[in-house]
Protein backbone atom coordinates (compact mmCIF):
# COMPACT_ATOMS: atom_id res chain seq x y z
CA UNK A 1 0.00 0.00 0.00
CA UNK A 2 1.43 3.37 -0.93
CA UNK A 3 1.90 6.16 1.58
CA UNK A 4 -0.90 8.20 -0.02
CA UNK A 5 -3.29 5.26 0.13
CA UNK A 6 -2.43 4.68 3.79
CA UNK A 7 -2.98 8.35 4.50
CA UNK A 8 -6.34 8.37 2.73
CA UNK A 9 -7.46 5.27 4.62
CA UNK A 10 -6.34 6.76 7.91
CA UNK A 11 -8.16 10.01 7.21
CA UNK A 12 -11.33 8.15 6.23
CA UNK A 13 -11.24 6.18 9.46
CA UNK A 14 -10.53 9.13 11.68
CA UNK A 15 -13.72 10.30 13.40
CA UNK A 16 -14.47 13.95 12.72
CA UNK A 17 -15.01 14.70 16.39
CA UNK A 18 -11.65 13.62 17.75
CA UNK A 19 -8.27 15.28 18.24
CA UNK A 20 -7.02 13.70 15.05
CA UNK A 21 -10.23 14.67 13.23
CA UNK A 22 -9.70 18.29 14.20
CA UNK A 23 -6.14 18.16 12.95
CA UNK A 24 -7.20 16.59 9.67
CA UNK A 25 -9.73 19.39 9.13
CA UNK A 26 -7.08 21.99 10.00
CA UNK A 27 -4.74 20.35 7.51
CA UNK A 28 -7.37 20.26 4.77
CA UNK A 29 -8.13 23.96 5.25
CA UNK A 30 -4.44 24.88 5.25
CA UNK A 31 -3.70 22.88 2.11
CA UNK A 32 -6.76 24.34 0.37
CA UNK A 33 -5.60 27.84 1.23
CA UNK A 34 -2.08 27.11 -0.01
CA UNK A 35 -3.55 25.88 -3.29
CA UNK A 36 -5.66 29.03 -3.81
CA UNK A 37 -2.68 31.15 -2.83
CA UNK A 38 -0.48 29.27 -5.28
CA UNK A 39 -3.07 29.85 -7.98
CA UNK A 40 -2.84 33.59 -7.31
CA UNK A 41 -6.51 33.96 -6.41
CA UNK A 42 -5.62 36.77 -4.02
CA UNK A 43 -5.76 39.19 -6.96
CA UNK A 44 -9.52 38.71 -7.07
CA UNK A 45 -9.97 39.75 -3.43
CA UNK A 46 -10.59 43.32 -4.61
CA UNK A 47 -14.15 42.31 -5.48
CA UNK A 48 -14.82 42.63 -1.76
CA UNK A 49 -14.45 46.39 -2.08
CA UNK A 50 -16.86 46.42 -4.99
CA UNK A 51 -14.05 46.81 -7.53
CA UNK A 52 -13.91 44.32 -10.37
CA UNK A 53 -10.42 42.91 -10.97
CA UNK A 54 -8.36 44.66 -13.62
CA UNK A 55 -8.21 41.50 -15.73
CA UNK A 56 -10.85 40.65 -18.27
CA UNK A 57 -12.86 38.02 -16.43
CA UNK A 58 -16.53 37.74 -15.62
CA UNK A 59 -17.55 39.42 -12.40
CA UNK A 60 -19.21 36.22 -11.16
CA UNK A 61 -16.04 34.20 -11.63
CA UNK A 62 -13.94 36.90 -10.00
CA UNK A 63 -16.35 37.08 -7.08
CA UNK A 64 -16.20 33.30 -6.67
CA UNK A 65 -12.38 33.25 -6.74
CA UNK A 66 -12.14 36.25 -4.43
CA UNK A 67 -14.63 34.88 -1.93
CA UNK A 68 -12.95 31.45 -1.93
CA UNK A 69 -9.57 33.03 -1.25
CA UNK A 70 -10.81 35.30 1.51
CA UNK A 71 -12.87 32.59 3.21
CA UNK A 72 -9.94 30.18 3.20
CA UNK A 73 -7.60 32.91 4.43
CA UNK A 74 -9.96 33.69 7.30
CA UNK A 75 -10.24 29.97 8.01
CA UNK A 76 -6.47 29.59 8.19
CA UNK A 77 -6.09 32.57 10.51
CA UNK A 78 -9.09 31.93 12.74
CA UNK A 79 -10.38 28.38 12.40
CA UNK A 80 -7.14 26.43 11.97
CA UNK A 81 -5.55 27.68 15.21
CA UNK A 82 -8.80 26.96 17.07
CA UNK A 83 -8.92 23.44 15.64
CA UNK A 84 -5.27 22.85 16.50
CA UNK A 85 -5.59 24.20 20.01
CA UNK A 86 -8.89 22.38 20.41
CA UNK A 87 -7.25 19.10 19.33
CA UNK A 88 -4.57 19.51 21.97
CA UNK A 89 -7.10 20.32 24.69
CA UNK A 90 -9.34 17.45 23.59
CA UNK A 91 -6.42 15.02 23.64
CA UNK A 92 -5.29 15.99 27.14
CA UNK A 93 -8.80 16.01 28.54
CA UNK A 94 -9.35 12.51 27.17
CA UNK A 95 -6.08 11.30 28.64
CA UNK A 96 -6.98 12.79 31.99
CA UNK A 97 -10.43 11.30 31.85
CA UNK A 98 -9.03 7.85 30.97
CA UNK A 99 -6.70 7.94 33.95
CA UNK A 100 -9.51 8.84 36.33
CA UNK A 101 -11.74 6.01 35.15
CA UNK A 102 -9.47 2.96 34.99
CA UNK A 103 -10.71 0.31 32.61
CA UNK A 104 -12.76 2.76 30.61
CA UNK A 105 -11.66 3.56 27.13
CA UNK A 106 -13.12 6.93 26.47
CA UNK A 107 -14.72 7.97 23.22
CA UNK A 108 -12.32 8.37 20.45
CA UNK A 109 -10.09 6.29 22.57
CA UNK A 110 -8.47 4.40 19.75
CA UNK A 111 -8.34 7.37 17.52
CA UNK A 112 -5.01 8.05 16.02
CA UNK A 113 -3.42 11.39 16.73
CA UNK A 114 -0.82 13.15 14.71
CA UNK A 115 1.92 11.51 16.69
CA UNK A 116 0.33 8.09 16.58
CA UNK A 117 1.01 5.66 13.80
CA UNK A 118 -2.00 5.04 11.59
CA UNK A 119 -3.78 1.80 12.35
CA UNK A 120 -4.73 0.64 8.94
CA UNK A 121 -6.31 -2.56 10.21
CA UNK A 122 -8.79 -0.84 12.46
CA UNK A 123 -12.33 -0.91 11.28
CA UNK A 124 -14.15 2.42 10.86
CA UNK A 125 -16.25 1.74 13.91
CA UNK A 126 -13.34 0.66 16.07
CA UNK A 127 -12.54 4.12 17.26
CA UNK A 128 -15.88 4.54 18.94
CA UNK A 129 -16.46 1.03 20.15
CA UNK A 130 -16.43 -0.02 23.77
Amino acid at each position, binding site marked *: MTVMKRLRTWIRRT*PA*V*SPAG*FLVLAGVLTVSFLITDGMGL*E*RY*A*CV*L*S*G*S*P*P*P*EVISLETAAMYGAAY*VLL*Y*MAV*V*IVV*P*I*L*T*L*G*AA*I*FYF*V*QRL*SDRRTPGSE*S*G*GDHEPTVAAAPDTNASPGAS*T*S*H
Partner: protein
Amino acid sequence: MDATSSGHNRSRLRRFCLGGLSLALAAAIWLPSVHLCFRPDLSSYRPADGVGPKARLMANRQVSFWSDADRRRRELRGMRSANPEWDFMGRTFFVLALANMIERDPSLRGEYLPLMDAIIDETLDVERTDGMFHFLMPYAKSAPFRRQPARSLFVDGEIALMLGARRLIQDDETYRRAMRERIDIILSQMRNGPMLCAESYPDECWTFCNTMALAAIRIGDYLDQTDHSDFFARWIATARKKLVHPETGLLVSEFDLDGDWHDGPEGSSIWMIAHCLQLVDADFARDQYERARKELDQSRLGFGGASEWPGSWRGPMDVDSGPTVPLLNFNAGSSGLAFIGAAAFDDDEFLTRLLTSVSFAGLPSESDGELRYLAGNQVGDAVLLYSLVLGPLWDRVTAEAGGQ
Protein backbone atom coordinates in the same frame (compact mmCIF):
# COMPACT_ATOMS: atom_id res chain seq x y z
CA MET B 1 -31.91 -0.79 23.26
CA ASP B 2 -29.31 -3.22 24.65
CA ALA B 3 -26.50 -2.35 27.07
CA THR B 4 -23.80 -2.31 24.39
CA SER B 5 -25.70 0.08 22.17
CA SER B 6 -26.56 2.34 25.09
CA GLY B 7 -22.90 2.45 26.17
CA HIS B 8 -21.87 3.22 22.63
CA ASN B 9 -24.28 6.14 22.47
CA ARG B 10 -23.14 7.44 25.84
CA SER B 11 -19.56 7.29 24.68
CA ARG B 12 -20.35 9.11 21.47
CA LEU B 13 -22.29 11.80 23.33
CA ARG B 14 -19.41 12.24 25.76
CA ARG B 15 -16.97 12.57 22.87
CA PHE B 16 -19.11 15.18 21.16
CA CYS B 17 -19.43 17.17 24.39
CA LEU B 18 -15.71 16.97 25.06
CA GLY B 19 -14.94 17.98 21.47
CA GLY B 20 -17.34 20.89 21.59
CA LEU B 21 -16.00 22.09 24.92
CA SER B 22 -12.42 21.79 23.68
CA LEU B 23 -13.22 23.90 20.64
CA ALA B 24 -15.07 26.45 22.76
CA LEU B 25 -12.12 26.71 25.13
CA ALA B 26 -9.70 26.98 22.21
CA ALA B 27 -11.85 29.74 20.68
CA ALA B 28 -12.00 31.54 24.02
CA ILE B 29 -8.19 31.51 24.10
CA TRP B 30 -7.51 32.27 20.42
CA LEU B 31 -10.13 34.86 19.46
CA PRO B 32 -9.07 37.50 22.01
CA SER B 33 -5.42 36.86 21.11
CA VAL B 34 -5.50 36.81 17.32
CA HIS B 35 -5.26 40.60 17.04
CA LEU B 36 -1.81 40.44 18.62
CA CYS B 37 -0.53 38.74 15.45
CA PHE B 38 -1.63 41.75 13.38
CA ARG B 39 -1.20 44.67 15.77
CA PRO B 40 1.19 47.07 14.02
CA ASP B 41 3.86 49.33 15.39
CA LEU B 42 2.16 52.68 14.85
CA SER B 43 5.47 54.52 14.42
CA SER B 44 6.23 52.59 11.25
CA TYR B 45 2.93 53.79 9.76
CA ARG B 46 2.45 57.24 11.26
CA PRO B 47 5.46 58.60 13.11
CA ALA B 48 5.22 61.98 14.83
CA ASP B 49 7.66 63.44 12.29
CA GLY B 50 8.68 62.41 8.82
CA VAL B 51 7.08 59.73 6.70
CA GLY B 52 6.85 56.23 8.13
CA PRO B 53 8.36 53.34 6.18
CA LYS B 54 4.98 51.72 5.61
CA ALA B 55 3.54 55.02 4.36
CA ARG B 56 6.49 55.27 1.96
CA LEU B 57 5.72 51.81 0.61
CA MET B 58 2.09 52.78 0.14
CA ALA B 59 3.13 56.00 -1.58
CA ASN B 60 5.34 53.96 -3.93
CA ARG B 61 2.30 51.94 -4.96
CA GLN B 62 0.42 55.14 -5.77
CA VAL B 63 3.40 56.64 -7.60
CA SER B 64 3.71 53.56 -9.76
CA PHE B 65 -0.07 53.63 -10.39
CA TRP B 66 0.31 57.17 -11.74
CA SER B 67 3.57 56.50 -13.59
CA ASP B 68 2.44 53.38 -15.42
CA ALA B 69 -0.26 54.40 -17.90
CA ASP B 70 -1.20 50.81 -18.77
CA ARG B 71 -1.59 49.79 -15.17
CA ARG B 72 -3.64 52.89 -14.42
CA ARG B 73 -5.91 52.30 -17.39
CA ARG B 74 -6.42 48.69 -16.32
CA GLU B 75 -7.16 49.47 -12.69
CA LEU B 76 -9.26 52.53 -13.48
CA ARG B 77 -11.42 50.60 -15.90
CA GLY B 78 -12.52 48.28 -13.10
CA MET B 79 -12.87 51.02 -10.54
CA ARG B 80 -14.74 53.42 -12.79
CA SER B 81 -17.18 50.70 -13.82
CA ALA B 82 -18.12 50.35 -10.14
CA ASN B 83 -18.07 54.05 -9.30
CA PRO B 84 -16.51 56.90 -11.34
CA GLU B 85 -16.30 58.96 -8.13
CA TRP B 86 -13.53 56.66 -6.90
CA ASP B 87 -11.34 57.71 -9.82
CA PHE B 88 -11.75 61.33 -8.76
CA MET B 89 -11.41 60.81 -5.01
CA GLY B 90 -8.31 58.69 -5.55
CA ARG B 91 -6.74 61.78 -7.13
CA THR B 92 -7.82 64.12 -4.32
CA PHE B 93 -6.60 61.96 -1.47
CA PHE B 94 -3.33 61.16 -3.18
CA VAL B 95 -2.61 64.82 -3.96
CA LEU B 96 -3.39 65.73 -0.33
CA ALA B 97 -1.12 62.90 0.81
CA LEU B 98 1.71 64.04 -1.48
CA ALA B 99 1.51 67.59 -0.13
CA ASN B 100 1.59 66.36 3.46
CA MET B 101 4.52 64.06 2.72
CA ILE B 102 6.48 66.95 1.22
CA GLU B 103 5.77 68.99 4.35
CA ARG B 104 6.88 66.09 6.52
CA ASP B 105 10.00 65.39 4.48
CA PRO B 106 11.12 68.26 2.21
CA SER B 107 13.58 65.97 0.40
CA LEU B 108 10.54 64.42 -1.32
CA ARG B 109 9.61 67.68 -3.04
CA GLY B 110 11.64 66.99 -6.19
CA GLU B 111 9.85 63.71 -6.80
CA TYR B 112 6.37 64.48 -5.52
CA LEU B 113 5.68 68.06 -6.61
CA PRO B 114 5.81 67.27 -10.39
CA LEU B 115 3.53 64.32 -9.70
CA MET B 116 1.02 66.57 -7.91
CA ASP B 117 1.08 68.88 -10.92
CA ALA B 118 0.63 65.99 -13.34
CA ILE B 119 -2.40 64.68 -11.47
CA ILE B 120 -4.00 68.12 -11.12
CA ASP B 121 -3.34 69.02 -14.76
CA GLU B 122 -4.72 65.73 -16.00
CA THR B 123 -7.82 66.12 -13.82
CA LEU B 124 -8.45 69.62 -15.15
CA ASP B 125 -7.92 68.38 -18.72
CA VAL B 126 -10.42 65.56 -18.27
CA GLU B 127 -12.95 67.94 -16.72
CA ARG B 128 -12.43 70.41 -19.59
CA THR B 129 -12.84 67.68 -22.22
CA ASP B 130 -15.53 65.42 -20.78
CA GLY B 131 -17.17 67.75 -18.28
CA MET B 132 -17.90 67.15 -14.62
CA PHE B 133 -20.06 64.12 -15.47
CA HIS B 134 -16.89 62.15 -16.13
CA PHE B 135 -16.40 61.93 -12.37
CA LEU B 136 -20.04 61.54 -11.37
CA MET B 137 -22.21 58.46 -11.19
CA PRO B 138 -24.58 58.06 -14.15
CA TYR B 139 -27.65 59.18 -12.19
CA ALA B 140 -26.22 62.72 -12.22
CA LYS B 141 -27.83 63.00 -15.65
CA SER B 142 -31.17 61.60 -14.56
CA ALA B 143 -32.55 65.05 -13.69
CA PRO B 144 -31.42 68.63 -14.17
CA PHE B 145 -29.49 70.35 -11.40
CA ARG B 146 -31.80 72.85 -9.65
CA ARG B 147 -29.20 75.58 -9.78
CA GLN B 148 -28.16 76.60 -13.26
CA PRO B 149 -25.61 76.55 -14.73
CA ALA B 150 -25.20 73.04 -13.37
CA ARG B 151 -22.19 72.55 -11.11
CA SER B 152 -21.26 69.68 -8.86
CA LEU B 153 -19.75 70.75 -5.54
CA PHE B 154 -18.23 67.27 -5.31
CA VAL B 155 -16.03 68.12 -8.30
CA ASP B 156 -15.51 71.83 -7.63
CA GLY B 157 -14.73 71.41 -3.93
CA GLU B 158 -12.17 68.65 -4.34
CA ILE B 159 -10.47 70.36 -7.28
CA ALA B 160 -10.20 73.54 -5.22
CA LEU B 161 -8.76 71.50 -2.36
CA MET B 162 -6.16 69.88 -4.64
CA LEU B 163 -5.19 73.31 -5.98
CA GLY B 164 -4.94 74.64 -2.44
CA ALA B 165 -2.69 71.77 -1.36
CA ARG B 166 -0.46 72.40 -4.36
CA ARG B 167 -0.22 76.09 -3.59
CA LEU B 168 0.57 75.44 0.07
CA ILE B 169 3.67 73.58 -1.07
CA GLN B 170 4.66 76.13 -3.69
CA ASP B 171 2.45 78.94 -4.90
CA ASP B 172 1.99 79.36 -8.60
CA GLU B 173 0.07 82.00 -10.55
CA THR B 174 -1.71 79.53 -12.85
CA TYR B 175 -2.95 77.44 -9.94
CA ARG B 176 -3.77 80.59 -7.94
CA ARG B 177 -6.06 81.82 -10.70
CA ALA B 178 -7.64 78.41 -11.14
CA MET B 179 -8.29 78.13 -7.42
CA ARG B 180 -9.72 81.64 -7.08
CA GLU B 181 -12.10 81.04 -10.00
CA ARG B 182 -13.18 77.75 -8.48
CA ILE B 183 -13.73 79.27 -5.03
CA ASP B 184 -15.80 82.09 -6.52
CA ILE B 185 -18.02 79.53 -8.23
CA ILE B 186 -18.31 77.48 -5.04
CA LEU B 187 -19.23 80.50 -2.94
CA SER B 188 -21.82 81.73 -5.40
CA GLN B 189 -23.43 78.26 -5.41
CA MET B 190 -23.32 77.81 -1.63
CA ARG B 191 -24.56 81.29 -0.74
CA ASN B 192 -27.50 81.03 -3.09
CA GLY B 193 -29.79 78.99 -0.84
CA PRO B 194 -31.30 78.63 2.61
CA MET B 195 -28.83 75.94 3.71
CA LEU B 196 -25.67 77.68 2.43
CA CYS B 197 -24.94 74.41 0.68
CA ALA B 198 -24.55 73.47 -2.97
CA GLU B 199 -25.58 70.41 -4.99
CA SER B 200 -23.24 67.56 -5.76
CA TYR B 201 -25.95 65.75 -7.73
CA PRO B 202 -29.33 67.10 -8.87
CA ASP B 203 -31.03 68.45 -5.73
CA GLU B 204 -28.65 66.37 -3.64
CA CYS B 205 -26.38 68.17 -1.19
CA TRP B 206 -23.75 66.17 0.67
CA THR B 207 -22.28 67.43 3.94
CA PHE B 208 -19.06 65.63 2.93
CA CYS B 209 -18.72 67.75 -0.24
CA ASN B 210 -19.82 70.98 1.42
CA THR B 211 -17.29 70.66 4.25
CA MET B 212 -14.52 69.79 1.78
CA ALA B 213 -15.45 72.97 -0.07
CA LEU B 214 -15.30 74.91 3.23
CA ALA B 215 -11.81 73.51 3.82
CA ALA B 216 -10.76 74.66 0.34
CA ILE B 217 -12.17 78.16 0.96
CA ARG B 218 -10.34 78.29 4.31
CA ILE B 219 -7.04 77.33 2.63
CA GLY B 220 -7.76 80.01 0.02
CA ASP B 221 -8.18 82.54 2.83
CA TYR B 222 -4.80 81.54 4.24
CA LEU B 223 -3.08 81.74 0.86
CA ASP B 224 -4.69 84.89 -0.50
CA GLN B 225 -5.40 86.81 2.71
CA THR B 226 -9.13 86.75 2.05
CA ASP B 227 -11.57 86.39 4.91
CA HIS B 228 -14.72 84.28 4.87
CA SER B 229 -15.05 83.87 8.61
CA ASP B 230 -18.57 85.34 8.55
CA PHE B 231 -19.64 82.81 5.95
CA PHE B 232 -18.11 79.97 7.99
CA ALA B 233 -19.89 81.15 11.13
CA ARG B 234 -23.22 81.33 9.29
CA TRP B 235 -22.65 77.91 7.75
CA ILE B 236 -21.91 76.32 11.13
CA ALA B 237 -24.92 78.01 12.73
CA THR B 238 -27.19 76.78 9.92
CA ALA B 239 -25.77 73.28 10.08
CA ARG B 240 -26.16 73.10 13.87
CA LYS B 241 -29.76 74.22 13.53
CA LYS B 242 -30.93 72.21 10.54
CA LEU B 243 -28.53 69.38 9.83
CA VAL B 244 -27.92 67.83 13.23
CA HIS B 245 -29.58 64.51 13.95
CA PRO B 246 -31.10 65.00 17.42
CA GLU B 247 -30.54 61.47 18.77
CA THR B 248 -26.80 61.45 18.04
CA GLY B 249 -25.87 65.10 17.65
CA LEU B 250 -24.13 64.15 14.39
CA LEU B 251 -24.44 66.00 11.12
CA VAL B 252 -26.59 64.19 8.59
CA SER B 253 -24.94 63.16 5.35
CA GLU B 254 -27.39 64.09 2.59
CA PHE B 255 -30.21 66.57 2.07
CA ASP B 256 -31.84 68.62 -0.66
CA LEU B 257 -31.40 72.30 -1.38
CA ASP B 258 -34.29 73.15 0.94
CA GLY B 259 -32.70 71.23 3.80
CA ASP B 260 -34.94 68.15 3.80
CA TRP B 261 -32.83 65.17 4.84
CA HIS B 262 -32.33 62.26 2.46
CA ASP B 263 -30.16 60.35 4.91
CA GLY B 264 -29.08 60.51 8.52
CA PRO B 265 -25.55 60.55 9.95
CA GLU B 266 -23.39 58.27 7.82
CA GLY B 267 -20.03 56.77 8.73
CA SER B 268 -18.59 57.07 5.23
CA SER B 269 -19.17 60.84 5.48
CA ILE B 270 -18.83 61.94 9.09
CA TRP B 271 -15.14 61.14 9.66
CA MET B 272 -14.04 63.31 6.74
CA ILE B 273 -16.59 65.97 7.67
CA ALA B 274 -15.04 66.26 11.13
CA HIS B 275 -11.55 66.46 9.59
CA CYS B 276 -12.55 69.27 7.19
CA LEU B 277 -14.35 71.17 9.93
CA GLN B 278 -11.04 71.36 11.81
CA LEU B 279 -10.14 74.25 9.51
CA VAL B 280 -13.39 76.07 10.13
CA ASP B 281 -14.51 75.39 13.70
CA ALA B 282 -12.13 73.22 15.71
CA ASP B 283 -14.48 72.75 18.68
CA PHE B 284 -17.42 71.68 16.54
CA ALA B 285 -15.07 69.38 14.59
CA ARG B 286 -13.88 67.64 17.76
CA ASP B 287 -17.43 67.38 19.03
CA GLN B 288 -18.44 65.65 15.78
CA TYR B 289 -15.48 63.28 15.94
CA GLU B 290 -16.14 62.29 19.52
CA ARG B 291 -19.80 61.72 18.83
CA ALA B 292 -18.95 59.66 15.74
CA ARG B 293 -16.53 57.59 17.77
CA LYS B 294 -19.21 56.98 20.40
CA GLU B 295 -21.92 56.11 17.91
CA LEU B 296 -20.04 54.25 15.19
CA ASP B 297 -16.96 52.62 16.73
CA GLN B 298 -17.60 48.89 16.68
CA SER B 299 -14.16 47.77 17.81
CA ARG B 300 -13.95 44.40 19.47
CA LEU B 301 -11.35 41.75 20.24
CA GLY B 302 -8.59 44.25 19.49
CA PHE B 303 -9.82 44.93 15.95
CA GLY B 304 -11.09 48.37 15.01
CA GLY B 305 -13.98 49.08 12.71
CA ALA B 306 -16.87 51.46 12.28
CA SER B 307 -20.47 51.00 11.29
CA GLU B 308 -22.07 53.00 8.51
CA TRP B 309 -25.08 54.06 10.59
CA PRO B 310 -25.57 54.77 14.28
CA GLY B 311 -27.97 52.52 16.18
CA SER B 312 -30.70 55.16 16.05
CA TRP B 313 -30.73 55.41 12.24
CA ARG B 314 -31.15 52.66 9.69
CA GLY B 315 -30.09 53.52 6.17
CA PRO B 316 -29.35 51.57 3.04
CA MET B 317 -25.98 50.22 1.96
CA ASP B 318 -24.92 51.85 -1.27
CA VAL B 319 -21.89 51.95 -3.50
CA ASP B 320 -20.31 54.65 -1.29
CA SER B 321 -20.62 52.70 1.90
CA GLY B 322 -19.52 49.36 0.48
CA PRO B 323 -20.13 46.04 2.20
CA THR B 324 -20.62 45.50 5.93
CA VAL B 325 -19.12 42.53 7.74
CA PRO B 326 -22.03 40.66 9.33
CA LEU B 327 -22.00 40.23 13.13
CA LEU B 328 -19.07 42.62 13.59
CA ASN B 329 -20.97 45.48 11.87
CA PHE B 330 -17.71 46.76 10.36
CA ASN B 331 -18.53 48.76 7.24
CA ALA B 332 -15.86 49.14 4.56
CA GLY B 333 -16.53 52.80 3.68
CA SER B 334 -16.98 53.99 7.23
CA SER B 335 -14.01 52.03 8.57
CA GLY B 336 -11.81 53.28 5.72
CA LEU B 337 -12.61 56.92 6.39
CA ALA B 338 -12.41 56.37 10.16
CA PHE B 339 -8.62 56.18 9.63
CA ILE B 340 -8.75 59.86 8.66
CA GLY B 341 -10.82 60.78 11.70
CA ALA B 342 -8.61 58.85 14.10
CA ALA B 343 -5.42 60.32 12.65
CA ALA B 344 -6.79 63.86 12.47
CA PHE B 345 -7.81 63.82 16.12
CA ASP B 346 -4.66 62.02 17.35
CA ASP B 347 -6.70 59.04 18.50
CA ASP B 348 -3.78 56.60 18.43
CA GLU B 349 -5.68 53.87 20.23
CA PHE B 350 -8.47 53.77 17.61
CA LEU B 351 -5.99 54.20 14.76
CA THR B 352 -3.93 51.25 15.98
CA ARG B 353 -7.03 49.09 16.18
CA LEU B 354 -8.08 50.13 12.67
CA LEU B 355 -4.61 49.33 11.38
CA THR B 356 -4.83 45.96 13.13
CA SER B 357 -8.01 45.23 11.17
CA VAL B 358 -6.59 46.29 7.84
CA SER B 359 -3.40 44.32 8.48
CA PHE B 360 -5.59 41.27 8.93
CA ALA B 361 -8.56 41.63 6.63
CA GLY B 362 -7.17 44.07 4.08
CA LEU B 363 -4.76 41.42 2.79
CA PRO B 364 -1.63 43.59 2.66
CA SER B 365 0.70 42.69 -0.16
CA GLU B 366 4.25 44.01 -0.12
CA SER B 367 6.41 43.52 -3.18
CA ASP B 368 8.85 45.51 -5.31
CA GLY B 369 8.99 48.22 -2.66
CA GLU B 370 5.24 48.77 -2.82
CA LEU B 371 2.50 48.10 -0.32
CA ARG B 372 -1.09 47.67 -1.36
CA TYR B 373 -4.17 46.12 0.20
CA LEU B 374 -5.57 43.42 -2.02
CA ALA B 375 -9.05 43.55 -0.52
CA GLY B 376 -9.31 47.21 -1.43
CA ASN B 377 -8.63 49.38 -4.43
CA GLN B 378 -6.60 52.43 -5.41
CA VAL B 379 -8.93 54.93 -3.75
CA GLY B 380 -8.92 52.88 -0.55
CA ASP B 381 -5.13 52.81 -0.57
CA ALA B 382 -5.03 56.57 -1.21
CA VAL B 383 -7.37 57.28 1.71
CA LEU B 384 -5.27 55.08 3.98
CA LEU B 385 -2.07 56.75 2.84
CA TYR B 386 -3.55 60.19 3.45
CA SER B 387 -4.55 59.20 6.97
CA LEU B 388 -0.97 58.17 7.71
CA VAL B 389 0.57 61.47 6.66
CA LEU B 390 -2.13 64.10 7.24
CA GLY B 391 -1.50 66.93 9.64
CA PRO B 392 1.10 69.38 8.38
CA LEU B 393 -1.13 71.13 5.81
CA TRP B 394 -4.00 71.68 8.24
CA ASP B 395 -1.48 72.70 10.95
CA ARG B 396 -0.08 75.44 8.74
CA VAL B 397 -3.48 76.92 8.05
CA THR B 398 -4.73 76.70 11.63
CA ALA B 399 -1.42 77.84 13.14
CA GLU B 400 -1.76 81.15 11.38
CA ALA B 401 -5.35 81.48 12.55
CA GLY B 402 -4.13 80.88 16.10
CA GLY B 403 -1.49 83.55 15.73
CA GLN B 404 -3.88 86.14 14.37
